[in-house]
């Protein structure tokens, strides 16, 4: 008899748990998916921060919008497109590799190649230069210096 309220309470807890569980699955967009898109977008009110990293209200609203669009069935690329149409390619943290942007993508590799070529050229030139002599010829002391040295030594002796 006393078990009845206990069972009822258990059932209630289970029901609440099931209810909250259903609520969680009703929002099928995972945080990771939202952040995956947000981390590729520039926070428009910051400098050099992604929408994922910025604590600003605008970035927060953008994350909300990304979640909403993903929930409505948009693919991540479509969500990115939505932002590009409004903010331009500027909003992408990684500019697409085409057109003039290719320069941006290839320049670092070009710089590495140029640097390597320079190191190679210099090292070859340095190796070609003769090693310094074991005993470098000491500068010759002329008679004038010899005389002056003697005179000064003599003055010190006084």
């Amino acid at each position, binding site marked *: 008899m006393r078990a009845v309220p206990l069972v009822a309470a258990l059932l209630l807890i289970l029901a609440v748990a099931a209810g909250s569980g259903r609520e969680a699955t009703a929002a099928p967009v995972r945080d990771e998916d939202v952040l995956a898109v947000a981390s590729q977008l520039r926070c428009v009110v910051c400098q050099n921060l992604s929408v994922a990293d910025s604590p600003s*209200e*605008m970035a927060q*609203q*953008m994350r909300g*919008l990304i979640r909403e669009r993903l929930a409505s069935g948009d693919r991540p690329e479509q969500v990115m497109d939505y932002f590009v*149409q*409004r*903010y331009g390619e500027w909003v992408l943290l990684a500019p697409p590799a085409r057109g003039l942007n290719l320069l941006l993508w290839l320049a670092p590799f070009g710089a590495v190649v140029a640097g390597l070529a320079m190191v190679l050229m210099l090292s070859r030139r340095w190796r070609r230069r003769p090693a310094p002599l074991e005993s470098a010829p000491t500068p010759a002391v002329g008679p004038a210096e010899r005389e002056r040295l003697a005179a000064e030594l003599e003055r010190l002796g006084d």
Partner: protein
Amino acid sequence: MKVRARWLIPLAALPLVGLLAYGFRTDPRAVPSPLVGRPAPDFELTAFDGKALSLQGYRGKVLVLNFWASWCYPACYEEAPVLEDAWRRSGGQGVVVLGVAIQDKEPASKEFIQRFGLTFPNAPDPDGKVSIDYGVYGVPETFVIDRRGMIRRKHVGAVTEAVFREWVEPLLRESAASGGARPVPGVADRPDDRRPQAS
């Protein structure tokens, strides 16, 4: 060979210096909007006084859509009287002004409206949807939308009388010369679009 090498290094650095000189002189916040020349995104807002506002309701008029915030000092404080003045001068005919308070607290926005005695419609954008739809990245930003619902100009920073003279008033004449507003295909097909425009 040696002489050439000596000049080669500064010569190679020259384009880089040029690029930096150009880059550092541009404002990192002044980003051209891809929306200029395109149909204005539709919006639905509820004004602070409860009135429903939408882009459709502004068809046939030159709309000055201004995004502001009460914490945006001094630019928003400078432009508020200019906007109000323009609104009063047109009397809701021809040029209309609509303010959208973004990233703001409602009491603060209302205080701002009261402080400047703004009589043109103003609405909050609580989830930022309208401002993101318009690619807004700061306040104040102002869009000039022509009678056909096309964005013709985006102005970043405080709106001045000169902005109205140069970018808003010509749109009034232009539309009148072409014999009234023509609806944008697929965007609006409302009967009042065909009504000849006054003024």
